[in-house]
């Protein structure tokens, strides 16, 4: 039976792990390579790096981090942030990433998703969707780390990227991110029911119960969290044991 994945996410800025409250106030949470190793040794099913201020000048920093991490972590490594071109993807994969996560570039041009999945295979193309609730039962896609409104319906967009070859969707609720009040379960449900590819839930985890909700109530195949793991509140092992005790199948 396929297990539900727990994915610690390392938001990286200028080579350091940070975690923001609603993407704004950043707090240093350490060295990314070191942290990734701790997670991988602790049983993380996958590790995710998001380069949150990826500008062109900064790209070499994240590539170097990926290179170092990939030599020490033998679980899948997903890297996102500022992925705009086929060359960006090639560079990250060559450095040792297993998947890349694409956000703004996919919204701007959905053909980029098609091109990338055709060239590298769907298995390594994750589309990151940042969604914000705009009215009852309606969510809109935002880009540029949540700064820009696009007018695009999140559910329609999720279907569209699936059609274009996305292997997975990393779905972040902008309303919930950094609040520690739990995932936006309604949004998750809506997207998991409208698509047929794995959905990774993101944004809002504050307790282990929230992970349970993401999987059981929201239908996510994987749950991503940052701060609950970074500041040592919980270990990956705690999360897995908790889920297992509630009959959610995980890799122990």
């Amino acid at each position, binding site marked *: *039976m*396929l*297990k*539900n*994945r727990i994915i610690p996410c390392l938001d990286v800025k200028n080579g350091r792990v940070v975690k923001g409250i609603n993407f704004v106030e950043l707090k240093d949470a350490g060295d990314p390579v070191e942290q990734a190793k701790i997670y*991988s040794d602790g049983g993380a*099913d996958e590790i995710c790096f998001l380069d949150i201020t990826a500008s062109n000048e900064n790209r070499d920093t994240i590539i170097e981090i990926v290179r170092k991490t*990939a*030599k020490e972590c*033998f*679980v*899948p*490594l997903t890297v996102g942030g500022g992925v705009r071109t086929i060359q960006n993807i090639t560079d990250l*994969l*060559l*450095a*040792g*990433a*297993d998947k890349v996560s694409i956000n703004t570039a996919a919204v701007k041009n959905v053909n980029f998703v098609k091109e990338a999945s055709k*060239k*590298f*295979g*769907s*298995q*390594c193309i994750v589309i990151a969707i940042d969604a914000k609730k705009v009215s009852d039962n309606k969510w809109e896609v935002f880009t540029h780390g949540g700064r820009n409104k696009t007018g695009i319906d999140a559910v329609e967009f999720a279907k569209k990227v699936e059609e274009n070859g996305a*292997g*997975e969707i990393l779905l972040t609720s902008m309303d919930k991110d950094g609040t520690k009040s739990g995932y936006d379960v309604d949004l998750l449900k809506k997207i998991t029911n409208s698509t*047929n*590819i*794995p959905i990774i839930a993101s944004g809002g985890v504050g307790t282990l119960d929230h992970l349970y909700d993401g999987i059981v109530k929201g239908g996510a*195949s*994987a749950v991503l969290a940052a701060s609950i793991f970074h500041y040592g509140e919980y270990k990956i092992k705690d999360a897995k044991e908790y889920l297992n005790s509630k009959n959610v199948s995980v*890799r122990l």
Partner: protein
Amino acid sequence: MNVTIVDYQSGNISSVINSFTEVAKGKVNLEVTSDINKIKSSDKIVLPGQGSFKSCVDSLNRISGLVDTLKDFTITNKKPLLGICVGLQMFADIGYEEVETKGLGWISGRVSKIDNQKGKFKLPHIGWNEIEIQKESKIFKDIKNKSHMYFVHSYEFIPEDKSVISATTDYSSNIVCAVERENLFGTQFHPEKSDKIGLKIIDNFLKL
């Protein structure tokens, strides 16, 4: 010992290189190449594969003499070869991803899309799943039954001769996830991404 990871410009093989490098450290001489002469003189070969069946087969064929060299190595000379993911799938006669494509034909069978029971199971099959060991296998030495391995695929290899199946995994049905026939080994999952237990499989292969 010389082990070659075949670099035929198809997909991302960094993780395969990293994991084999880690396990081979100081014990095995590892080469990453598509050089026919180097392949001929190696003791073992690793054939990775990512992307579609067609793109992998096309890439192999693009390198003149490579397919024949691999065939001599593994079928005629019976030296050990490990295919990973599409590397394993290409052992088949035929694959149906994108368009019908001829495989290497080393193990009779076909590669078809996983029947996801009309959407009941999400595809790709991504994540950690348990393997059910079906027969004694040299590369599963000290690997417990129901160990977790990392999978990423939408297509499955269906061999005609079921006796080649060394492990299956349960996803919508029992999917073949490892084959073994004499010197020929293949895993649908990614040992290079399957944590310490995956590295153990790599170690077993290197120790053959």
